[in-house]
């Protein structure tokens, strides 16, 4: 069994300009932020992102000018920032191409790709403009084979014409990057808490990159085979990246960082302040170690560590931060 272990820098370098990618996690948890910062440092351009409910992972990539087209359902940090500020500006300025779906629709599209079928049916979307309207033009769709030929397709059930469904086209990305709690060097991973759509996203990608809080032995993970959701032979690379999701949470490891999220959202609506955020926390640091130092080091991070009885930090101050 050859090891799939590589460094974070090596992992980021695998993703070229123009690549199609999905990142794991959901709004405030388990985004592969360290890898995303590395992509920004590499000045990657024209990335094509697929997601359901990304948060600041997409927002900072979009703000840094790395993204050309996105297909998604939602982009915000929920209560930490009810809109992704750079995403909002990019749309209002016509700086990124996008297509709107719902979370269920995007998850259905990842599921179809993972299952190896061209589409899956659902009963949602009827009567909405998510169904009725398209943001991408037919020309834009035709010009990129990675974009579905149609946004969706409505049909009657051949088993009962009274039943109508919406067919959602499968997603296939060139890359998927997940940040998980534990991984073994053969690619076996352990996701704790909610799995979001990580498994489906990984299984519809050509190359799956895992960043993990902890590298453990394959034997340890094989002790509980019911807890392993992703076939290790679908995983290409594994990188060991502690605090790899900061400022977002990783269940059982650490909580989200309200201070860092406040700094981001207070400045991100302003171009100059956003550039300064990038200069201070992304361009101004060379790697994850320097990033963690820049956000406050051990003093800050220790306060985020999860209480084993909760899986998060029960006494974390989230409002009225001094």
């Amino acid at each position: 069994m050859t090891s799939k272990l590589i460094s974070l820098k090596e992992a980021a370098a695998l993703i070229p300009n123009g690549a199609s990618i999905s990142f794991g996690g959901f709004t405030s948890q388990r985004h592969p932020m360290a890898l995303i910062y590395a992509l920004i440092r590499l000045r990657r351009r024209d990335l094509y992102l697929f997601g359901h409910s990304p948060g600041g992972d997409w927002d900072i990539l979009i703000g840094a000018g790395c993204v050309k087209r996105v297909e998604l359902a939602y982009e915000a940090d929920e209560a930490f920032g009810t809109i992704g500020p750079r995403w909002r500006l990019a749309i209002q300025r016509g700086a990124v191409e996008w297509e709107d779906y719902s979370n269920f629709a995007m998850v259905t599209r990842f599921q179809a790709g993972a299952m190896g079928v061209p589409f899956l049916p659902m009963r949602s979307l009827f009567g909405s403009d998510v169904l009725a309207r398209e943001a991408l033009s037919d020309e834009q769709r035709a010009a990129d084979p990675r974009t579905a030929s149609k946004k969706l397709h409505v049909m009657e059930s051949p088993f009962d014409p009274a039943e109508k469904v919406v067919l959602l086209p499968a997603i296939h990305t060139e890359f998927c990057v997940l940040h998980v709690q534990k991984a073994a060097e053969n690619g076996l991973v352990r996701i704790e808490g909610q799995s979001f759509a990580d498994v489906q996203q990984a299984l519809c990608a050509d190359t799956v990159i895992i960043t993990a809080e902890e590298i453990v032995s394959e034997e340890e993970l094989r002790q509980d085979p019911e807890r392993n959701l992703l076939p290790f032979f679908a995983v290409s690379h594994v990188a060991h990246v502690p605090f790899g999701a900061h400022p977002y949470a990783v269940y059982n490891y650490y909580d989200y960082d309200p201070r860092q999220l406040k700094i981001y959202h207070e400045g991100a609506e302003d171009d100059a302040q956003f550039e300064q955020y990038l200069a201070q926390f992304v361009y101004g640091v060379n790697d994850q170690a320097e990033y963690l130092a820049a956000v406050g080091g051990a003093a800050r991070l220790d306060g985020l560590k999860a209480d084993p009885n909760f899986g998060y930090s029960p006494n974390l101050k989230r409002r009225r931060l001094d």
Partner: protein
Amino acid sequence: MSTTVQYSLTELMTVAAAREIKDGEVVFAGTGLPMLGVMLAQQTHAPNCVIIFEAGAIASRMAHLPMSVGDPRTVRGAAMAAGLSEVFTYCLQAGRVDVGFISGAQIDRYGNINSTSIGDYHNPKVRFPGSGGSCDIACLAKRTVIIAAHEKRRLPEKIDYITSPGWLEGGDSRHKAGLVRGGPAVVVTTKGVMRFHDTSHEMYLASYHPGLSAKAVADDTGFVLPTEHATETAIPTAEELRILRDVVDPERVFLK
């Protein structure tokens, strides 16, 4: 005595929302005020309600208020920690969710919601986050509770984009569009509580918040809002306020 109870507008709205949940119901919760509402309901009159979050936590028993539907806090005491697919297909689409909470920037008289953008869709004046799970909850929950800020411009004749379908054009248009169940039951706003006519499915004022009048609420609405059935919104009990303030949100994450 309850008549002397002091409460904020957020507290009044939260209690009104919480009272929409019946004991034992399966509830699809969203971020913010809905989270206060479901936790309050679970701590008061609906101890057996099943709280579901689209990110994957099922039947949560939260010890701390989450700030996101993907928050680690939603896993606390949960019966299942799964993913979006299990929640959307096995629970929501299969018809196992009794009530879903949604909100938006614009709402029309049929409870259709816009949380996508204002202005031309392709060149929007203001862009919002987008549907998230709202469209799916609006389409597939047995009924929905809508939370909104009550301003004339936010309750217009026509919304710019239907992110989450309500009763569409009223009557049986929702069913005709292909939706197999559901529809908005109530709208809790900063000024009152609105419900929908049984057959026309047009919104009417069920109650105006204390200190306001039915006419004042109607005047602040962008479409004609029938007020003949309107009474004053029931205020929170001292016990509801105590649990809300001391148990549900002692940190004042969402409470004001």
